[in-house]
Every structure is written in structure tokens, then in C-alpha cells.
């Protein structure tokens, strides 16, 4: 449907965009300030790096999700895909195909990336060439990926058997570079890459165009199917990157791995200011969104304010309040 455009010369939407870009960071700062009040240990270096490292999985996946959603798609399969890739990666590490340990671990990472890209490609081609709603396609692959993992694990869990491999690979999650944990570096790297793709390249602009108005993109000679499919492949790669740091943390995968990650990631994307119906994407906002979600949980635990039975309610309320505040800020210009 066409919407009426008034004759009023409105400069507002422009400014509104920048407000919605800043709002998630303001919300994050506010929540952190509350955290510091609730428990001074919140601001300790160890706690902050813990929280940052923990948010890696969701943040990394959410960057991919930002691209998919900006392009007018949706991917519900990311949690199950993470579990599936984790399982395959660990099975490969256990297979002992390669004797050289560093090479084994690097090969496992490459395998994870390849499987992630293929899973994404499958999602992308099914939605674009198959012309099926992404919600349905990825709901289907969500079931497929999770069942495949359960089957691989025979209902139990898959664990890295070799303790030397375990000890060496463990560094990928727990190690650091000049005091900055590797997972935190990964968030930074993925966010910079995501922002580069979305804001600086022609492909990124095509993603926005396709999500904003498919017809305009088509009439401008842009291949909608190709652009969308690639967003799913990038999402698959992001999931694989998350897996690469997830696996060393507990060295195992089970049917419970990645359960609910899809919704958490989508929530992070939306809290970060990206529009669910496509066309507008905020990579850095997504990172802020992922951190907000993780920090809220952390503060709830560190403070003694709330009964353990009510934590879920408080988290939900804070997310809604953060979104309302964001809306309020942009409405009042």
C-alpha cells in the first residue's frame, strides 16, 4: 500500500535515524551504570571480560542476523545450526585424521566455516529460488539441524576425547591478546567486517535496497535472489565463527547447545535498532543489543535485588522499557 506523504517539509526522519542509532548505546550505558550501583564488582575487569566473552556467541550470530533481516529475510535456524556445526567439529577433532595438533584444530575451524556456509547456502537457496517464506524454511532447517546433532550424539553429548587437544583448543576461548580475550577480539572483528560490508560496499547497499523495497531493487537491475542468498551464507559463516569459540569453552555439544539462541539473537538485532521488516540495519546497535541482553542477566545475578524466580520477568521488563525509551527519544526528536 502506498502511504500518503504530506506536503509538510519534514526534516525529522533524518535526525530520527541518528537517534535510533545512538539509543542502544545510551541504554547500555544506563544499564551499566545501574549495574555499578548494584554491585561495585560489576565494573571489575574480570567481570567485564567475562560478560563480553559470554556475549560473543549471540553477538557474532546477531551480526549475521542483522544482514539477513536488513535484506528482508529471517533465520530461525541459527541455534540449531550452531549445535550441528559444534557436533561435527568435535567429531572431526575426535577422528584423529590429522596428527599435527595445531593443524588439526585449524582444519576443524575451516571445516566449521565450510559447513556453516553450506547450511546458510541451503537456507538462502530454498527461500530465494524455492520462493518459500524464510520463516518456514528456517523453521524447517532448525528442526533438521537439531535432529542431526541429536542423531550424531545418539541422544547424549559429544565431547572432545583427547585431553591434549582439549587443553590446546581451550585457549581459543580462555586465552587473550594483551589482556583482551580472544572472543572479545572476535566480536570486534565480526562487527567491523559486518559494518564494512553493510555500509561501505555496493553489496551492502544492495542488501538495504532489497530489504527496503524488493521491486525497486529488481527494477534497478539488482538480483534479489543473489543478494538475499549471500546474506544467509554470511549468517552461516557467523554461526560457524561463534561455534569456533563456543566449542573450546566446554569442549562438548549436546542437544541443549544453542537452544533459544535464534530468539536471543533476533532480540539483540531489534533492540539494536534494526527494523524487523528490513531495509535498515545497525551493526553496532546489534552489538550493543547483544551486550544489553547479557549484561542484564549478569546484573540480576550480581545484585540481590530480585528473587531468583523473577529474573525472567525483570529481564523482559527491562527490554520492553529500553525499547519504549528508544521510541520515546525518537518521537520527541
Amino acid at each position, binding site marked *: 500500500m502506498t502511504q500518503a506523504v504530506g506536503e509538510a517539509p519534514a*526534516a525529522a526522519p533524518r535526525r530520527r535515524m541518528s537517534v535510533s542509532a545512538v539509543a542502544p548505546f545510551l541504554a547500555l550505558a544506563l544499564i551499566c551504570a545501574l549495574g555499578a550501583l548494584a554491585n561495585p564488582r560489576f565494573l571489575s575487569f574480570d567481570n567485564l571480560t567475562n560478560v563480553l566473552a559470554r556475549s560473543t556467541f549471540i553477538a557474532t550470530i546477531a551480526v549475521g542476523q542483522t544482514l539477513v533481516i536488513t535484506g528482508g529475510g529471517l533465520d530461525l535456524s541459527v541455534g540449531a545450526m550452531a549445535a550441528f556445526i559444534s557436533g561435527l567439529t568435535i567429531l572431526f577433532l575426535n577422528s584423529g585424521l590429522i596428527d599435527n595438533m595445531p593443524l588439526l584444530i585449524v582444519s576443524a575451524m575451516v571445516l566449521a566455516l565450510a559447513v556453516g556456509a553450506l547450511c546458510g547456502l541451503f537456507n538462502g537457496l530454498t527461500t530465494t529460488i524455492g520462493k518459500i517464506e524464510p520463516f518456514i524454511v528456517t523453521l524447517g532447517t532448525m528442526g533438521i539441524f537439531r535432529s542431526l546433532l541429536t542423531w550424531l550424539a545418539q541422544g547424549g553429548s559429544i565431547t572432545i576425547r583427547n585431553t591434549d587437544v582439549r587443553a590446546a583448543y581451550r585457549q581459543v576461548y580462555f586465552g587473550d591478546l594483551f589482556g583482551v580475550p580472544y572472543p572479545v577480539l572476535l566480536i570486534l572483528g565480526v562487527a567491523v567486517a559486518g559494518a564494512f560490508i553493510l555500509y561501505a560496499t555496493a553489496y551492502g547497499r544492495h542488501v538495504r535496497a532489497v530489504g527496503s523495497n524488493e521491486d525497486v531493487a*529488481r527494477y534497478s537491475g539488482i538480483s534479489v535472489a543473489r543478494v538475499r542468498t549471500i546474506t544467509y551464507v554470511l549468517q552461516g559463516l557467523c554461526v560457524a565463527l561463534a561455534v569456533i569459540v563456543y566449542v573450546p569453552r566446554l569442549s562438548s555439544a549436546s542437544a541443549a547447545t544453542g537452544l533459544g539462541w535464534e530468539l536471543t539473537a533476533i532480540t539483540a538485532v531489534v533492540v539494536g535498532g534494526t527494523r524487523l521488516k528490513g531495509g535498515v540495519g545497525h551493526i553496532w546497535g546489534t552489538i550493543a543489543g547483544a551486550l544489553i541482553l547479557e549484561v542484564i542477566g549478569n546484573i540480576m545475578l550480581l545484585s540481590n535485588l530480585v528473587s531468583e524466580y523473577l529474573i525472567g520477568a525483570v529481564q523482559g521488563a527491562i527490554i520492553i522499557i529500553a525499547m519504549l525509551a528508544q521510541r520515546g527519544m525518537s518521537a520527541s526528536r
Partner: protein
Amino acid sequence: MSEAGEKKRAGAGPDGPVLEAVGLSRSFGPIEVLSDVSVSVRAGEVHAIIGENGAGKSTLMKILAGHLAPTRGAIKLDGSPVELKGPVDAERRGVVLVHQEIMLAPDLSIAENMFLGRELRRGLTVDDREMNRRATEAMRVFGVEAAVTAPVQRLSIAQRQLAQIARALAVPHRIAIFDEPTASLTPVETSALLGLIRELKAKGVAVLYISHRLEEVKAVADVVTVLRDGKQVATKPAAELEPVDMARLMVGRDLLALYPPRPPAPAGEPAFEVGRFGAAGFAEDASFSVRPGEILGFAGLVGAGRTELFEALFGLRKGGGDIRLNGAEQQWRDARAGMRAGAVYLTEDRKSKGLLLEETIAVNLTLASLDKFQRGPLIDRAREARALDEAIQRFDIRVGDRTLLAGQMSGGNQQKLLLAKMMQLDPRVVVIDEPTRGIDIGAKQQIYRFIAALAAEGRSVIVISSEMAELIGICHRIIVMRNGRVVGEVAGEEMNEHAIVVLATGVSTNGEDVRT
């Protein structure tokens, strides 16, 4: 202006105005888009409001129909002041507005849209049969024999516009406000609409009529009010104003000739040849060719299949046939393929297919040609900014602020931007569908000059239009389509509206309202 003093101030009474607006003003923020406008309309009177885009016409109409509240001033119905609380309140009082923008739910049928929110019921269920019957009747008045059960998105823009008019008039009303109802209509539908307005008038309905088409205004209006920059410039009986006077009042200066001098018709080999081309379900067996430097027009009624034919040519919908560009055979599976070969299609539907309304001018300008603006993997913003400068200058895109979003620009500027966007590709063949729909007369004049300039540069130009006058004014030849087929071609002396209408309808017209 001396005309400003001639505002009519009729008092209330049996013969007094049904609707009267006194000193209406409206501001958005610090900007006043309407200042001190007073108009009135009596039962059985047609009052036309004219003005360029941005003159405040639509704002005035929205205030009168209860969509906007005035910042200052009053509205009187039957002589007593009222405060309209919203469009529903206005409708309850018998005021209906036919919107300029199409506001129909695309997935619902014509009949469902027509009765949306006021469905007829039979017991607990909706009475579809009765609604379909009434909808069919209402559409027949416009000569549209479309299935009213088909979803609106399958209709052409003109048919949607007619469905929207029918929807508005299905409400009991004493005052009908039309906001550019004919912008997307062809002459035959336009004359049906004007006939309908005369019927309303005969029934004693008061009509407010906004249009860019001054000939229509002259034909149907009793009184004309001219707005410019939000101010009331003149209110006069229509009998005292000729279209040229109206245009002068609207623009505030004398207009040069509307159409540019026609470049001489080129001779030589055709650059673009189409043979036996068809678009599934819309057009078949179309063959034509166009030379470099030539402007070829495509005329026809709504639903004649012109837009669909060209969309199929450019791979935007299903179809097939022979295409040759400079002798080389072509097959375009998508718009990109045509662009690579040097041919572009500018859609008739600027807002939903041509431009990203929520993106900036620069993003829109380079969207189809981003490959040219890359440095490595990056977009070269400096080159993009330069291209924007050039486009703004060459196509006279009038924007104060370059960060403006495409959706915030006037129709004329949007059309210029669309043209500039496609010219980034430096095409040899340019197809422009409805180049001047819904844009004001000043911008129209400019667009015609740009089209002539494209031809003068040696490009082949095809113009699809429902405004016969503009086709006659700028084209070297005009091909006429009817029911999906090419039925004839007119050129030179034969290029007149009568000849085109005969071809387009297949019958000799009685000439009513078809001005020659």
C-alpha cells in the same frame, strides 16, 4: 495581487454555501504551508482548487476532510462552525475525500476494499454477493469491466484509482472532495469521471476538485481558486479564466511554450527492434522499432498492455519474442541484462518500484549503477557526491538539503531523480513510462525538454503515456495499443487526439470531452 480581493464571501442561507472555510492556516513546525485561505462551495457547484505541487492544495483538502486540524481559521457547514474530529467524523457529516495516493489493501479484492470497515452483513456473515453486485455496478459507471473479486494488486494503477473513487463515493455524502483524481487516468476514463462529477452536481452534491489538468478544470468547474506557496492568489468564476490564465496565476509568471521544439525526425537504420513480442496474459505479437534520436510514443487505454509489454521486454515479468539492439539479438532475463546491453526502463510507479523512499537522493541516484562507483570493494563516496552534483545541475533537482530522503521530495523532483538515476547508465535506449504523472506544470515542461535532449544526443527514446496531448507534443511517431495488441501507428499530420482515440477504443468517438 489584485485577484486576491475577489474572494467570495457568501453568507449562510438557503442558497448559501454548504461548506465554507474561513481564513484557514496550517503550520508544520515553523513553516506555514497554508496561510489565510478562504473558500466556499454551494450545493450543485464544482469548485476547483489549482496550484503547483507544494502550493498547499492537498493540505487544504486534508483540513476540509478532517485529516488535519487547521492552526488557525474555521470550517463552517451550512453556516455553522464545526470542529472536525477526524475523517470518520467528517464522513458522518457527509464530507468524503478521494485521496490522491492510492490507499487500498493490495491483497483484498475491489469489493472488499470498497466496503472495508463498513461491510454489509447478513446475519453473522458478510453479504459478499450483495457487495460484489454493488461494486460491479460502481465500477461499470467508469466503464471498467474488471472482476471485483480480483485482488487489487492485480489491477493497473488507473483501475485502482477508479476503485478508490468508487469506494469514497459509496458513503452517503453531500460534499465530495477529489484530490487529483485523473492523475493516472487515460482520456476515456477521465471523461467517464467528469461525467460522474456532472451527475453529482445535478444531484446537488457540492464538489471540490483539485487537478493539474487545466483543460479538465475549465471543462468541469464553476469556480476556480488558485493557490501559490500556500496563499490564495485568486478565486474567479471558471468562465472568466482560460487554461493559459490559470497556468500564469499558478506559476506567477508567463509560461514559455509547454513543449520544446521537436528535433527533426531522424532517418537511418533502427537501433532497437522488437518483433512479435508478448507478455503472458497482457500483450501479444507486438512489433515495432525506433531509430537513434527518435522519440516514439505508446498510447492506449488503461489495461491496453503497454506497461506490461515493456516490463516483459526488460525481463521484469513473463514474456517472450525477438529483441534486436543495433542488429544484435538480445534476450533479457532481468533488468540488469537490459542495462548491460544499453537499454533502460523507467517505471510508471515511481514510489513503489522506482525509488527507495526511505533512502537519500545519493543512494537512489547510484543504485542501478553502483559498479561504476566502486574503488576496490568500497563505494567511492567522493565520486558519488560528484555524480550527485552533476545530476542536480543537469536535471534541475530542487532540494535544499542533500540528506533529504527520496520520499520527502515532490513528485516532480522524484521523477527527475529517477531519470537521473537511469541516465547514470548512459543508455542508448530509454523507455519512460508515464513521465509526468502527478507532477506540476513547471516540472512537466522541464521533463519534456530533457526527453528532447536525450533524443538530440542520439539516444532512442520511447515514451508511454496516457496523456495524449504530451505524446502529440513531443513524439515523432505514436504507436497505439488496444487489448494487448498494437493496432496502429500515427505520425506527422495524423498525430491528433481523435485519430489516437479511434485506434485506442476501436470505435469512432462522439467527441465528448475529448478535446482536439
